[in-house]
């Protein structure tokens, strides 16, 4: 199976999207699933959120953050990705919730936002509100990649107020929760805000599904690296999640465990930079 890149676009200074051929994943993808990418032989197996699946291709959002995403960014249309595996994970129920909010503030969350809004809006009785927040107007994605087309209501926010509503999605959501009846919240993106959104929705007694991103090795339930603690019970983000009831997540552990390999990530980047120097 050749996983050929068919489209690549810049989303902002650090984020980009690619469409890539992955029929197995595309055919069976349900929002809430993720896929596993291996960019090169001897590469890591990295979990990746999926924005959408159309025909044989899937759309993925990346942030240039570590070695693997830098390598991906160097690939062009027509290049291949070594392996794409999935779909993985256990999505939350795709059903009628009523008024649903999906809030996101980071690349993977934005991809999940699109996917979930798109499918839930097709279910009668759902009213979908999508909130996407970015630090400044310069970080906002191109219009056609924002969730406006897949939501009944779309709220764009920037933390400095340079575009759309001023504030983080947490500010926007709190206002909504105060003013309107919300039946279900979903959220993805940075982990610390997910802890906050869990506290916030708990205060308003509204259920929330959060994407608990964790470090995975095989991502098939074998290593236990992505263990999360749900109401004290150990679950695995790769096969039981990664979306969990935010009110039950041990966020302190989730936030801490995510930093375990920070020191090594820098080493990998330095190594890549050295190699790139050689190339020049």
């Amino acid at each position, binding site marked *: 199976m050749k996983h050929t890149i068919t489209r690549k676009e810049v989303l902002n200074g650090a984020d980009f999207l690619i469409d890539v051929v992955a029929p197995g994943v595309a055919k069976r993808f349900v929002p809430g699933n993720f896929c596993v990418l291996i960019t090169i032989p*001897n590469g890591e197996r990295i979990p990746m959120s999926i924005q959408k699946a159309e025909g044989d291709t899937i759309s993925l959002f990346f942030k240039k953050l570590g070695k693997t995403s830098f390598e991906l960014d160097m690939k062009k249309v027509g290049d291949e990705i070594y392996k794409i595996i999935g779909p993985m994970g256990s999505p939350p129920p795709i059903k009628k919730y009523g008024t649903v909010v999906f809030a996101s503030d980071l690349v993977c969350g934005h991809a999940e936002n699109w996917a979930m809004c798109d499918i839930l809006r097709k279910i009668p009785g759902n009213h979908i509100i999508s909130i996407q927040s970015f630090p400044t107007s310069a970080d906002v994605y191109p219009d056609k990649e924002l969730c406006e087309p897949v939501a009944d209501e779309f709220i764009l926010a920037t933390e400095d107020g340079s575009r759309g509503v001023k504030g983080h999605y947490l500010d926007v959501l709190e206002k909504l929760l105060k003013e309107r009846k919300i039946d279900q919240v979903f959220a993805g993106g940075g982990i610390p805000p997910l802890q906050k959104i869990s506290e916030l929705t708990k205060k308003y007694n509204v259920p929330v599904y959060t994407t608990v991103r964790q470090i995975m090795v095989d991502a098939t339930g074998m290593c236990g690296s992505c263990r999360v603690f749900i109401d004290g019970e150990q679950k695995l983000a790769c096969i039981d999640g990664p979306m969990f009831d935010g009110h039950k997540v041990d966020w302190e552990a989730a936030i801490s465990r995510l930093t375990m390999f920070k020191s090594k990530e820098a080493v990998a980047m330095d190594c890549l930079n050295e190699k790139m120097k050689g190339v020049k």
Partner: protein
Amino acid sequence: MAIAKRVPMREQDPKIRITNFDSVPLGYSAEEAVKEAKRCIQCKVPSCETGCPVRMDIKNIIKLIADEKFEEAFFLSKKDNAVPAITGRVCPQEDQCEGVCVLNKTGEPINIGKLFAFVADWAREKDFVEQINVKENGKKVAIVGCGPAGITCAVDLRKLGYGVTIFEALHMAGGVLQYGIPPFRLPRDVVDYELSFLKKIGVDIQLNQIVGQNIGFDELQKEYDGIYIATGAGAPRFLGCEGEKLKGVYSANEFLIRVNLMKAYKFPDCDTPIICGDNVGVIGCGNVAMDAARCAKRLGAKKVYILYRRTRECAPARNEEIHHAEEEGILFREMIAPCKMFGNEDGWVTGIQMIKTEFKGCDKNGRPTPVYIKDSEFIMELDTVINALGTSPNRLFLSNVKGLETHSWGGIKTDENFMTNIPGVFAGGDALTGGSTVIEAMGNGRNAAEAIDEFVNRKT
């Protein structure tokens, strides 16, 4: 009559080998192998063969080696064992063929494992390949999982003429041979070579195929005449104690997958990292615990402790592994059990509270039962803790098969012919037993192949 001593196995010096991941045993030379094989007294009724889960023709293979007919010895060993170079290295021979060897009573048993590894290695170097003319029978079998059970079942069915497709979840074939057992015990060129045989005889190995995720189990049911589930026992067990969420606490599976499958010992040339501290505690005393401890040593740990609630004499690990671990400076702390783990404000593990144990009675297998000694808790300072507590059947696949009956502990239920409650769907290996040895899983794959063949023939 005095019986000659075993021909010793040359090994890498412990001081040197803890700095690399290369094979510890260097293998017999042809001369050494012949000398060792000649020690065999060729019993009329060879007890060694009764101890072999895949029923190898051990006596005759040894005779052929003694007569320097290595090629014939190789072909004879291949008859019953798809991967003799692997089993020669990882079987618990002391509990099987060598354990019941007559010489074990009066001297030292024949080094059967190393002899078989020699023959297989010799054939690999000479590039001898077993010639198999497969007569296609037009029937198709799907095998889920490319570990020891799946590999053996695949080879046996292929020899009978079946079209065989193996669906493997990971990006490399081999199962535990690839992700679990470290290269210093099982070199990867050996694994690659043994697996290349499957391709040569026309077994189709589909990597990155997670049945139930990217292919439906129902699709397999429609397309194949029989299915063999050999998904293994790859899910790690945890203690469930306080502090297990801390950074620096690994399951042995994670530690070994990082090192073996993802080659973290080559980081940053390979992308997957591993963090191994100076003071490492490995909880458990099986082969996996030994593997993890010896990997930690090779990753540069200053002190590596095996923490075990019994004594090493009752440990499930192979004698050779314990012996090698001792040589490499692994420290055994016996008759102690873990209570909880401590961490610092950054969430990294800093120590573990242990409690002393004593023996009280025996379990039904005759192993002494450890019980806690009241108020004997003490603290060990550690910066890495590895749980090697055993594994459970992989639940991802099982959760994807509707209606498949399993035991409460997660193992698949089958009848005496290895068939599950779903007709035509068979199961074996660790997915059935919950975890045993490579060779037991292979024996299982072999028996299942016979049962599948019988089932398909009866159906048509």
